[in-house]
């Protein structure tokens, strides 16, 4: 008599345990497609998955006129397609945080979109920033009225507000369901930081953090913002009024852009060096930025000071217009440690159709070399599309 175990009858609690050991979203989705019992032993929305390796959201296809957008996966070395009418051509993303894109359009609306689930969450609109005094849809070309810090007034068009008002927007966590998320926006023109919390209907400035506008991250309940010299403003926006304290490190010299990244219990400073090229072609002057180098520092609170890191070991960083992210390379196939995966990060203007390559690639900390991303091989002459590629973490929650 042979064993008469019916394998599809693994009891639900064992199937559930197995499903919780799966750490990659694709594996989990496949698990739930095997059969009826497997499907219902694991919840539709997994809550145990660790942060996934980001996908690279590719620009809209020039030739195809569909709403399908490609997302390149480093792990699987293939492009996945999602149907996303919500990110049509005229819309710009000014952030990618916890798997949610921050979408701006030629209207005041600011909304968050999860490309995997197509869920949408609205944030207070552009017209509700403290320095925006009015919005008049019929005043063509000057729809927004704004006030400068010293009281002068000026106007902005719909396109200008979409393209250059907000530099980057990050979230404390996914806004799904009832979570108590917070959002912080870095403003381009004045270097202000503005914030709002779930349920609020307007943005407020973090007054004492003005000029800490290179990058901002959420870390242990607080927002850390860095200025171009590497000094940090630590912002607590959980109470009635923001509270800001400072970490005054010695002035960092050099570098064109600064990013902050947190990994486990450390705060890292990533300095990006760019070189400028001018491309004159057919009477059109294109300005092309090229990243040449990165330096990474860890924060030593004794001092305080930034200490240069010669190796990230197994860590891998993702920087660009997204919320800066650090992961362990060994957790993901297709990804190598001690590297920085970077994308274009020039949020000021629409440069659709200009020449030159996107400024993206993989920087190797060990020897300072730069490799192309597999989906953007060198010399592919694809030109630059707007909006440029951006890292998005696939997040089913």
């Amino acid at each position, binding site marked *: 008599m042979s064993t008469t175990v019916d*394998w*599809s009858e693994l009891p639900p609690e064992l199937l559930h345990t197995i499903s919780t050991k799966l750490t990659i979203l694709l594996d989990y989705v*496949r698990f739930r497609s*095997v059969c009826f019992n497997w499907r219902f032993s694991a919840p539709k929305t997994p809550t145990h998955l660790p942060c996934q390796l980001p996908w690279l959201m590719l620009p809209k296809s020039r030739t195809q006129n569909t709403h399908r957008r490609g997302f390149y996966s480093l792990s699987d070395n293939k492009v996945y397609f999602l149907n996303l009418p919500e990110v049509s051509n005229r819309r710009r993303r000014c952030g990618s945080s916890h798997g949610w894109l921050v979408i701006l359009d030629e209207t005041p609306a600011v909304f968050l979109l999860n490309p995997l689930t197509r869920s949408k969450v609205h944030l207070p609109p552009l017209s509700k920033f403290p320095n925006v005094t009015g919005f008049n849809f019929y005043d063509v070309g000057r729809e927004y009225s704004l006030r400068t810090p010293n009281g002068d007034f000026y106007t902005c068009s719909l396109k200008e507000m979409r393209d250059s008002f907000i530099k980057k927007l990050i979230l404390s966590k996914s806004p799904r369901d009832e979570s108590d998320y917070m959002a912080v926006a870095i403003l381009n023109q004045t270097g202000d930081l503005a914030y709002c919390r779930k349920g609020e209907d307007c943005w407020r400035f973090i007054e004492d953090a003005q000029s800490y506008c290179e990058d901002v991250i959420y870390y242990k309940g607080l927002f850390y913002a860095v200025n171009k010299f590497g000094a940090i403003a630590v912002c607590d926006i959980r109470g009635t009024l923001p509270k800001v304290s400072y970490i005054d490190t010695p002035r960092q010299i050099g570098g064109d852009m600064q990013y902050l990244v947190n990994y486990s219990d450390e705060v890292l400073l990533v300095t990006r060096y760019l070189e400028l090229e001018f491309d004159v072609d057919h009477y059109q002057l294109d300005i092309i930025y090229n990243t040449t180098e990165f330096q990474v520092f860890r924060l030593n609170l004794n001092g305080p000071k930034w200490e240069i890191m010669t190796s990230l070991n197994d860590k891998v960083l993702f920087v660009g217009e997204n919320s800066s992210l650090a992961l362990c390379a060994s957790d993901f196939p297709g990804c190598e440690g001690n590297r920085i995966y970077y994308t274009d990060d020039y949020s000021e203007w629409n440069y659709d159709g200009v020449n030159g390559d996107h400024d993206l690639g993989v920087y190797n900390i060990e020897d300072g070399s730069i490799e192309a991303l597999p989906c953007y091989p060198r010399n592919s002459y694809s030109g630059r599309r707007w909006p440029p590629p951006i890292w998005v973490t696939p997040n089913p929650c």
Partner: protein
Amino acid sequence: MSTKSQEKQLITLKSWDEEEFVVEESVAVKSETIKNIIEDCGLELIPLPNVDGKTLAKVIEYCTKHSTGSNDDSEDLKKFDDEFLDSKEIPVLIDIVLAANYLNIESLVEKICTKIADRIKDMSVEEVREAFKIENDFTPEEEKKIRNEHAWAFE
């Protein structure tokens, strides 16, 4: 009640296909189920109608190795666990995990579940069904719904 002698208490475990295994009590009580039976009834011969002899032998092999007194995190034990599990095909792993679940040996259940997850990680849905001898019991409508939920994963 305890004597000063080092005599180890022996327990006999009997599978449903009448195979008997004599093991030390300290090994047998790695199973919470057996531990409870011993504490409640003081039996020395414990019938296990849900486990066959071949599988019981393997479970006992695991429990024996894990009652040597050394730390569960030691290199040796980890090496043993990896070899013990990696060498077995999925049908065998399933037999063992069902037995370990019935016998309530939590550490073994966790480890096998992790191993199974590792194995299915790189398999397509079809390959999983084949390895586990599972029928696709979704209706065409359900299939369609599943594919649409995460269309990107199935293209």
